[in-house]
C-alpha cells in the first residue's frame, strides 16, 4: 500500500484494494500459514464510540496473526472523560502499540490523529465520515460473489450519514461499476461524496424507489435507516417502511442478486431472506477477519 495509514477509501487505488483482497484470499485458503506472522506485535484499540463488532473483529484479526491487543476501554473510564484531547490520547497509546485502530464520533478524527503519530493508523469509523476497513471486506464479498468489474450495484438506505456507504461508493470508482443510490430524498448522498464520485467520472444514478432499478442489479447493499435521523416518529416509520426487503420485494430481482448489509440490521431485511441464496450478509461479516488480517499484515509489513 502506498500510504502508511488507512484513513479514507478515497486514498485507495485499485492496486491497494487488490493487494488486500488477494492477501485475504491467501489467508482464507491457509490461515495456519499466518498464525505466527506478527508474533510480538501489539495493536492498540481506541474506540471512542461503542462498537462491539468492529472492535472484536480487529481484536480477533490481530490475535490470529499471532499478535496481541491493548484496548483503551470504554470512554467513560478513560482520560478522555477528564478532558484529554484526541491528539494527546493517540500520542500516548502510540507508545504502547505498533499500530492503532481508531473509532471516533467526529468526522475527520482519523485524519487528525494520523498527523500526530508515526505508527500505522486504521480508521474504524469517524462519525458520518468513512469506514474503509468495512469497505475492504465489502469488496472482498462482492468479488467472491459477483466480481468487481462489469457490475451493477444498488446501495440503499441512509446514504447521507452512512459511513460504510461513503467509503464503499468511493472505493467502487476504481472498478467498472454502475452505481445506483436508493434513498428517501432527505437521506441522499452528502455533497462531498457526490463531489468525489463526480470527480472520478463514476456512473452514478439516484432513485427514491427500489423498483426502478431492482431488476438490473447484481448486488443490493442495504443499510439501516436510523430513527434519530428523523424529528418525527411517524415520519421515520413511514420512510423506513419503504426501504425494506422481503420475499415479495425480491420477486422482481434477478435470481443471482447478492444481498449485503454491514450489520447490525433491525428489520430492513426480513428474516425469511436469510436462508435464500441471495443472502450474503453473514458471509460478509465473517470476511471481516481475513480481510482485517490482510490489512494489518500489509500495514505492519510496510516498514519492516
Amino acid at each position, binding site marked *: 500500500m502506498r500510504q502508511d495509514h488507512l484513513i*479514507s477509501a478515497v486514498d485507495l487505488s485499485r492496486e491497494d484494494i487488490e493487494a488486500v483482497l488477494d492477501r485475504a484470499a491467501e489467508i482464507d485458503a491457509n490461515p495456519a500459514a499466518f498464525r505466527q506472522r506478527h508474533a510480538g506485535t501489539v495493536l492498540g484499540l481506541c474506540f471512542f464510540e461503542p462498537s462491539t463488532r468492529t472492535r472484536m473483529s480487529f481484536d480477533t484479526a490481530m490475535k490470529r496473526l499471532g499478535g496481541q491487543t491493548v484496548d483503551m476501554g470504554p470512554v467513560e473510564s478513560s482520560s478522555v472523560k477528564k478532558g484529554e*484531547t*484526541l*491528539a494527546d490520547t493517540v500520542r500516548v497509546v502510540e507508545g504502547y502499540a505498533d499500530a492503532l485502530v481508531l473509532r*471516533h*464520533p*467526529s*468526522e*475527520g*478524527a482519523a*485524519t*487528525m490523529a494520523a*498527523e500526530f503519530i508515526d505508527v500505522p493508523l486504521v480508521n474504524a469509523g*469517524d*462519525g*458520518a*465520515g468513512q469506514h474503509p476497513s468495512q469497505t475492504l471486506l465489502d469488496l472482498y464479498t462482492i468479488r467472491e460473489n459477483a466480481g468487481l468489474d462489469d457490475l451493477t450495484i444498488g446501495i440503499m438506505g441512509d446514504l447521507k450519514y452512512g459511513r460504510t456507504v461513503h467509503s464503499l461508493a468511493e472505493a467502487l470508482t476504481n472498478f467498472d461499476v454502475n452505481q445506483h443510490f436508493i434513498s428517501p430524498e432527505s437521506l441522499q448522498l452528502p*455533497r*462531498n461524496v457526490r*463531489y*468525489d464520485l463526480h470527480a472520478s467520472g463514476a456512473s452514478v444514478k439516484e432513485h427514491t424507489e427500489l423498483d426502478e432499478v431492482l431488476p438490473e442489479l447484481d448486488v443490493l447493499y442495504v443499510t439501516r435507516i436510523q430513527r434519530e435521523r428523523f424529528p418525527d416518529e411517524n415520519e421515520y416509520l413511514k420512510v423506513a417502511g419503504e426501504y425494506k426487503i422481503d420475499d415479495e420485494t425480491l420477486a422482481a430481482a434477478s435470481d443471482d442478486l447478492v444481498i449485503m448489509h454491514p450489520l447490525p440490521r433491525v428489520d430492513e431485511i426480513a428474516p425469511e431472506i436469510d436462508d435464500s441464496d441471495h443472502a450474503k450478509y453473514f458471509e460478509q461479516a465473517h470476511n471481516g477477519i481475513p480481510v482485517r488480517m490482510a490489512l494489518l499484515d500489509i500495514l505492519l509489513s510496510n516498514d519492516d
Partner: protein
Amino acid sequence: MTDDHQLRVSKIQNGTVIDHVEAGQALNVLAILGIDGTSGETVSVGMNVPSDRLGRKDIVKVEGRELSQSEVDVLSLIAPAASINIVRDYEVVEKSRVVRPETVSGVVSCPNRNCISNADEPITSGFAVLSDGVRCDYCGSIVREKEIAANLDVS
C-alpha cells in the same frame, strides 16, 4: 478620479488599503480581518464606489494593520480582483494583487459542527481550494465560494 476618492474615503497614515473589492463584500472583508469595531482600529469603508474596472467596488482602509498571509489567502476567495496597498507614512510602499492560493488555513471554520477541526484539539482548520469553493482537510466538507463569508472564524 483621485480627488473623488479622497472625498469618499480618507487617507490613512499607516496600515492597509484593500481596493477593488467586489461591491457588497466590504463587510465580509472586515469579517476576515476580524474587525467588528470593538478593537479600536480606525477603519474606513467605501461601498459601491464607481470603478473603471469593476463598475462598482468596495474599498476598505484599516489604520495600523498589515494583513497576514492567511488573511490575504481567504480574501482572495471572496474578492479575487482585490489589490492590497500597504501604506506607511501616507505613502503606498507596497501594492499587490491577491493570488488564489492552493490551500487556506485558519480564518475559515468548517461548517460541519461535528468536524474534529471544531473540537478542542491542537490543530488549525485547513482547506484545499477548489474551483468553486474550499474543502475541509479533515472531514472533507465542501464550502462553496458564496458560503465562505458565513463561515469565517472571527473569534
